[in-house]
């Protein structure tokens, strides 16, 4: 997909003016937050589980190479194949080879952010293979030629009227009289159309929420059951997963599962948690004949050992964006690449470079709500600040910003000049603004006064007044 992160500001302006989008974003604010809160309150051990989940991932990352090797051994022992892909391009090539080997023409897909990251759909189409997204939200945005705007609710930016329009446009057999005005009827229509696709597909591609080293198992977590139909019906099941999805044992996965769904949708468990180990076994009446895992690095190994390693704990629950005031305002597409919201603001610069995505770690108020709700206790604001430091070091910030900051820092570092400047400037500013109490416009303060008034200073500075008071006190004493 085209990276539009450099145009974040323009994207955001467009999003703010988009009435449909703003209406849809109201659903994010209303839906996810209360549900998460209720699920969390109902489990007294929730915070201890967060600590445990964090510790598990930290441990796994510290020995990631060893766990990957252990995992590979187990997958092979269960009859599966493991493919290693250093880059997105490598992963695409591997998947295409697997598809070609079985003469695949149609591929069904479970919801997977990693295949968005490697831009798999466009690539398969370009090679004559038809990818069909089967998650309802993903299906809708595929019809629209869009990308997910949220990592667990890909079509959260849309309203039902827009979905109806798309279904009528693409499902051209539909009689005009057919009612598609409500989510119920839209879901029924999608279910009917996609049922046929599951049976037609030669290859089913899913992501993975966890890869379990102990057993060589991949796990997916879904609510619709589409991921299961995607992997059980075709001849070949391909799992695409990034290397940090590794957890040591099934027990470890169980710990993290307890915080995953609660943080994501407020469910205790998602409806379907599926553990897959190898292909169809002897006597199995169904299931894929081939089972492949594509292990993707694509920049992760370089994050290890840096201040961004903590990001590799992310389990893609979406809680950070569900609670982000900036995401609530501009939605996911404004971020301009695959991963939106706070987790995207940290991950995107790691994967595509901060020179292309510098706005993302800057477009945060540092309100800290993302870190407060992150089940894996990822210090998201701190890492956004690290990106700002790297930008500053490389001189990537706009010149006006650097100049303004330098001007301010010059005084902040020199207390006597700060006091002098303030004792002249502030009373002057106050003189102009005191009567009305605030400024509607002010030179050099356009960023502020464009949307709000600037309260006027009260008069002389606190330090000026305090010194006078102190002097008076001392005089009174002598």
């Amino acid at each position, binding site marked *: 997909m085209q990276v539009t992160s450099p145009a974040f500001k323009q994207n955001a302006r467009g999003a703010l003016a988009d009435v449909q989008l703003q209406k849809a974003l109201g*659903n994010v604010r209303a839906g996810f937050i209360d549900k998460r809160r209720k699920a969390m309150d109902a489990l*007294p*051990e929730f915070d201890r*589980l967060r600590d*445990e989940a964090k510790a598990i991932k930290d*441990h796994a990352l*510290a*020995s*990631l*190479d*060893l*766990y*990957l090797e*252990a995992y590979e051994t187990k997958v092979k022992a269960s009859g599966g194949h493991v493919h*290693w892909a250093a880059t997105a391009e490598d992963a695409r090539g591997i998947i295409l080879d697997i598809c070609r080997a079985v003469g695949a023409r149609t591929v069904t897909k479970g919801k997977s952010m990693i295949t968005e990251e490697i831009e798999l759909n466009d690539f398969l189409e370009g090679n004559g293979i038809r990818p069909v997204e*089967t998650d*309802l*939200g993903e299906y*809708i945005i595929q019809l629209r030629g869009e990308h997910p705007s949220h990592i667990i*609710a890909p*079509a*959260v930016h*849309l309203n*039902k009227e827009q979905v109806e329009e798309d279904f009528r446009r693409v499902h051209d057999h539909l009689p005009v009289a057919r009612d598609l005005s409500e*989510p*119920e009827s839209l879901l029924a229509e999608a279910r009917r159309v996609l049922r046929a696709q599951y049976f037609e597909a030669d290859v089913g591609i899913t992501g993975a929420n966890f890869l379990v080293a*102990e057993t*060589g*198992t991949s796990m997916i977590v879904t*609510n*619709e*059951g589409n991921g*299961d*139909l995607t992997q*059980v*019906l075709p001849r070949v099941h391909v799992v695409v997963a990034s*290397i940090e999805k590794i957890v*040591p*044992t*099934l*027990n470890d996965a*169980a710990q993290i599962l*307890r915080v995953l769904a609660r943080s994501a949708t407020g469910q*205790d*468990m998602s*409806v*379907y948690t*599926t*553990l897959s180990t190898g292909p*169809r*076994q002897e*006597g*199995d009446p*169904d299931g894929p004949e081939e089972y492949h895992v594509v*292990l993707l*690095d694509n920049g992760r190994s*370089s994050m*290890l*050992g*840096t201040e961004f390693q903590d990001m590799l704990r992310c389990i893609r629950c979406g809680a950070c964006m569900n609670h982000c005031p900036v995401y609530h305002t501009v939605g996911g597409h404004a971020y301009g690449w695959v991963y939106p919201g706070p987790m995207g603001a940290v991950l995107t610069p790691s994967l595509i470079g901060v020179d292309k995505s510098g706005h993302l770690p800057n477009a945060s108020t540092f309100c800290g709500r993302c870190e407060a709700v992150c089940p894996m206790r990822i210090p998201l604001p701190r890492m956004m600040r690290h990106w700002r430091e790297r930008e500053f070091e490389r001189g990537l910030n706009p010149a006006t910003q650097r100049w303004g900051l330098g001007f301010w820092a010059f005084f902040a570092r020199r207390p006597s000049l700060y006091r002098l400047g303030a004792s002249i400037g502030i009373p002057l500013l106050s003189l102009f603004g005191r009567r009305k109490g605030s400024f509607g416009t002010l030179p050099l303060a356009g960023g502020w006064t464009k949307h709000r008034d600037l309260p006027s200073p009260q008069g002389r500075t606190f330090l000026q007044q305090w010194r006078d008071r102190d002097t008076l006190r001392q005089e009174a004493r002598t």
Partner: protein
Amino acid sequence: MSAREAILSRIRQSLDATGDDGARRAAVGRRLSEAPRGVIPARGQLDAKARTALFCEQAEKIQATVQRVKSPDAVPKAVAGYLRSKNLPATIRMGADERLASMPWSALKSLEVRSGPSDGDDEAGLSHATAGVAETGTLVLTSGTANPTTINFLPEHHIVVIDAADIAGDLESALAAVRVDRNGATMPRTVNLISGPSRSGDIEQKLLLGAHGPRALHIIVVGG
């Protein structure tokens, strides 16, 4: 250098683990063999009777329907009753599960039993669970001829029989049962942890049942 070697060596470099890593290897070996159980919620640590009650309560909370019967012999009647109550044809799809096979199906003359995996044309499917998880009302089903995975997803109505004795308090205990089931380390090809009927909230965050999998999940708890 292969991609595999390139990735692994880059990881080692980043982790600064290029020298002797005996300590790391030992820690990994220990974790894999001991598989510590971490934090187990208090609500999952109950006696058998309370476990079954909690399982039923949690399953109903997530829109499954639950029916309790005294013995396996009562299951065919319960299945037929469910089909009738939903105005479904008296046909049920099921695998070769021995526990299901030993139930008195032939006593119900009007009920047609179809054997083997689902082809997508079944209104109702029947499975026998390997285990259950009381803390979340979750069913644990394992693939194989006994209970083909397609039955879990293709029929509109999924009926699952579970023996109350197989209900564990917590997820870890249920997963242990899955592992033991297949000679130690070997896992069944697919383990489905199922918590309620299929659903989606993808259109305007409105929660709807029956997205791609079953619209209804009916659980028959035997004994307990």
